[in-house]
C-alpha cells in the first residue's frame, strides 16, 4: 500500500445497516426526505420550489475546476443508520458501532467521555445522531440541536431565518441543497447570552454513493456571543462523493459569531482517484450594529473545494473577517476565498488567505470586496499569500475590488513564495530535521490564521497540515 494513503486515518468505513433512498433526484425523493423528517407543509414547499428553480439552473464553471460531469441521478440523497432513522434515541443508547465510529474520530459522544467545554452535534450521513451538553446549554437559554429537530421544536425560528442569508436560488449548489438538505445544526443564542460552551458539529460521510447535503443555521441575538467549530471526514473510496452544504449565520446588534472549520474530507488517492467534491455556500449576515462575524477555515481535504465563506456587513460599524489556510496536494483542486459586501457605514473587513500548493495541485484564492455607496468610511484589508512546494503545482489569486464611495479605504497585499530544496537544506544544516523544518515553515506561513482558532482546534489543524505537507514534500 501507498504509505500516503495510510495517512488518511479517517478513511475507514463503518459497517452498519443503512436506511437509504433509491438513487436519483426527483420530486418523489424530495417528498420522501421531507416525510422521513416529518416536516411541515411549508418546508416541503420550500424544497419543491428550490428543486424547480435548480432544474432551470446551470452548474457554474467560472472557477475552471476540472472534473467529469456529476450525474445527479446516480446519487442517493438520503442515507441514515437504520437504528437512528427508525426511532430517535438518546446518545447513550446509540448503536455501539456508531459510538465507536465517533470515538475513533476523536469525538466521544457518551456522557462520561465527552469533551468538556465543547458541545457536539454528530451528523452521520443524512442524520444527526444527537447533540451533547444539552442541559448546560438549555440553562443558558441556548438552543443547539440538529436542524431536523429545530424544524419540529422551533419551527418559527427556522422559518424566519432559513434562506434569509442564502436565498434558495443563490447558486446552483445552494439551490440543490435547499431542495434535498437532510441534516446539519441549528443554533440560537438569545439576547445578551455568552454561550457557555463552544459549539461544534462533526460531519461524517459513511454510506456509499450517497451525497451529504447539510444545512446549518446560526442565529446570534443582540449582544450575544458564540464560538462554533466544524469538522468533516469521510471514508476512503474510489468513487467521488458530493458534499453540497449551506451554512447561514445571522448576527444582530453587538453580537459576535466565530465560525471555524477544519475540513479534512477524503481527498482522493495520489492519482486523483476518488475523493469528495466539496461545493459549499457559507455566508453570514452582520445584520445589526457592531455585529461581528469571523470565518476561520483550514481546508486540507476534498478532491475539489469550491467554497467562499462570505459576510454581508449590513449593520453600521459591523465587521467581518475571513482567515483561511488551504492546503492542496497531489491532484487536489481548491478554489476558495470570500466575499465581503459592505452595506452599512463604517463597516470593516479583514481577509487573510494562505494557500499552500504541493504535488500537481491547483490552489486559487478568489475574493470580492464590494463597498456600496452608503457604506461610508468602510475599510478593508486583504492579504493573500501563496506558498508553492515543488514545480508542478499552481497557485492563483483572483481578487475583485469594487468601491462605490470615496470615503472608504481598501488595501490589498499578495505574495507568492516557494519552499525549495535549498531552503530545506539551509534549515536542516542548522540542526532541524525534516519534521521540525516543515513545521516551522508552515507555522510561520500560517500563524496569522492558526492564532484565530480555538486552542485545541489550532493544535489539531497544525498537526493535520504538517502531516499532509511532510508526505508531499518528503
Amino acid at each position, binding site marked *: 500500500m501507498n504509505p500516503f494513503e495510510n495517512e488518511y486515518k479517517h478513511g475507514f468505513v463503518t459497517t452498519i445497516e443503512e436506511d437509504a433512498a433509491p438513487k436519483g433526484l426527483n420530486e418523489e425523493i424530495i417528498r420522501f426526505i421531507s416525510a422521513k423528517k416529518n416536516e411541515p407543509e411549508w418546508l416541503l414547499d420550500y424544497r419543491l420550489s428550490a428543486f424547480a428553480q435548480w432544474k432551470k439552473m446551470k452548474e457554474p464553471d467560472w472557477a475552471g475546476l476540472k472534473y467529469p460531469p456529476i450525474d445527479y441521478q446516480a446519487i442517493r440523497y438520503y442515507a441514515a443508520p437504520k437504528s437512528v432513522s427508525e426511532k430517535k434515541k438518546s446518545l447513550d443508547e446509540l448503536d455501539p458501532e456508531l459510538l465507536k465510529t465517533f470515538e475513533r474520530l476523536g469525538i466521544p459522544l457518551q456522557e462520561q467521555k465527552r469533551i468538556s467545554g465543547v458541545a457536539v452535534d454528530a451528523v452521520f450521513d443524512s442524520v444527526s445522531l444527537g447533540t451533547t451538553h444539552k442541559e448546560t446549554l438549555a440553562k443558558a437559554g441556548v438552543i443547539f440541536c440538529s436542524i431536523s429537530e429545530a424544524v419540529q421544536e422551533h419551527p418559527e425560528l427556522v422559518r424566519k431565518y432559513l434562506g434569509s442569508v442564502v436565498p434558495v436560488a443563490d447558486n446552483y449548489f445552494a439551490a440543490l441543497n435547499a431542495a434535498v438538505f437532510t441534516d446539519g445544526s441549528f443554533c440560537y443564542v438569545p439576547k445578551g447570552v455568552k454561550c457557555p460552551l463552544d459549539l461544534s458539529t462533526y460531519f461524517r460521510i459513511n454510506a456509499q454513493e450517497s451525497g451529504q447535503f447539510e444545512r446549518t443555521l446560526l442565529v446570534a441575538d443582540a449582544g450575544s456571543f458564540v464560538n462554533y467549530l466544524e469538522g468533516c471526514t469521510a471514508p476512503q473510496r474510489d468513487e467521488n462523493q458530493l458534499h453540497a452544504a449551506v451554512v447561514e449565520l445571522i448576527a444582530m446588534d453587538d453580537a459576535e459569531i466565530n465560525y471555524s472549520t477544519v475540513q479534512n474530507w477524503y481527498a482522493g488517492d495520489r492519482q486523483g482517484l476518488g475523493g469528495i467534491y466539496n461545493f459549499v455556500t457559507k455566508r453570514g449576515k452582520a445584520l445589526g450594529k457592531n455585529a461581528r462575524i469571523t470565518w476561520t477555515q483550514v481546508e486540507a481535504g476534498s478532491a475539489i473545494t469550491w467554497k467562499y465563506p462570505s459576510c454581508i456587513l449590513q449593520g453600521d460599524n459591523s465587521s467581518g473577517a475571513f482567515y483561511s489556510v488551504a492546503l492542496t496536494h497531489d491532484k487536489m483542486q481548491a478554489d476558495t476565498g470570500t466575499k465581503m459586501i459592505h452595506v452599512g457605514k463604517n463597516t470593516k473587513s479583514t481577509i487573510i488567505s494562505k494557500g499552500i500548493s504541493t504535488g500537481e495541485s491547483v490552489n486559487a484564492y478568489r475574493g470580492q470586496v464590494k463597498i456600496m455607496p452608503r457604506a461610508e468610511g468602510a475599510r478593508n484589508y486583504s492579504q493573500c499569500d501563496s506558498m508553492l512546494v515543488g514545480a508542478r503545482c499552481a497557485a492563483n489569486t483572483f481578487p475583485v475590488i469594487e468601491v462605490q464611495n470615496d470615503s472608504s479605504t481598501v488595501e490589498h497585499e499578495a*505574495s507568492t*513564495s516557494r519552499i*525549495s*530544496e*535549498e*531552503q530545506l*537544506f*539551509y*534549515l*536542516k*544544516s*542548522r*540542526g*532541524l*530535521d*525534516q519534521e*521540525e523544518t516543515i513545521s*516551522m*515553515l508552515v*507555522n*510561520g*506561513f500560517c*500563524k496569522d490564521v492558526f492564532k484565530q482558532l480555538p486552542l485545541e482546534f489550532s493544535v489539531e489543524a497544525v498537526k493535520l497540515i504538517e502531516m499532509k505537507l511532510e508526505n508531499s514534500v518528503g
Partner: protein
Amino acid sequence: MLSIENLKAKVNDKEVLKGIDLKIKAGEVHAIMGPNGSGKSSLSKVLAGHPAYEVESGDVKFDVNFEMKSILDWEPEERAREGIFLAFQYPIEVPGVSNITFLRLAFNAICRHQGASEMNEEEFRKFVAKKSEIVKLNPDFLDRAVNEGFSGGEKKRNEILQMAVLNPRLAVLDETDSGLDIDSLRIVAEGVNRLRNKNNAIVLITHYQRLLDYIVPDFVHVLAGGKIVKSGDKTLAHKLEKEGYDWLLQ
C-alpha cells in the same frame, strides 16, 4: 577532527570533486582558495550533506566522542547536531519565520541531541542579544524573518551570528567575504576570530587574500579542477595574491 579521504563527488552528473584528501585538527584554521569552478563550494556542500551532491567514492570522517566516524550517510541535521556548521555563500531567505524562532529551534535541537538543557524564549533572547554584539547586529534583527530583506552584508553577519549561537566544532565559511564592504568584512572577520578557540576548527573558503589578512590561517590549500593541488602556510596566500593561480595549473 575531520579527515577527508580521496573524496570524489558529482552533482547533476558532473564530477566536481576528483579525489580530495585533507586532515583538520581542533584549533586549526584552514583556508581553501582556488579559481572559479574549482570545487570549493562543492566541497562545503558535500561536507554539510547537500542532497544534490552524490559521493562516488572516498570518505569523510568526523570525530564523535574520540572516535572517527564516517558522516556520509548522515542527514544534514545529524551533521549539524554533531557540530558541523556551514556558513552559506548565499544565505537563504525564509519568509514568515523570525530569526529568533529559527535560532532557538535550531539551538534547542542541537542541545537536545547533545544532552544539554534547552532554553526558553526569555533565556534565549538574552543569550542571543549578547551573541549579536559579536557581529554588531542590531537586536531588531531577531524579530525579522530569516534573511528576508537583509542586505548582502547583513546576511553574512547573520550567518556568523548563527555560528556564534550554535557553537560548532567545525565551521566551514563559504565565501563569507564575498560581497562585503571593508567595514562589514572587518566586523565579520573579528567575529570569527572571537569564536576561534583550541577546541574548534575553521575552514575558510575564499577567492581573496584580503580575508586572510584579518583571519590568519594555519594552512592554505589551493583547489583546482576538483583536487588540492598545493598546500602551504599563510605565505602561500600571499604568493597567490601576487602571482595568481596560473603557475599551479600548468
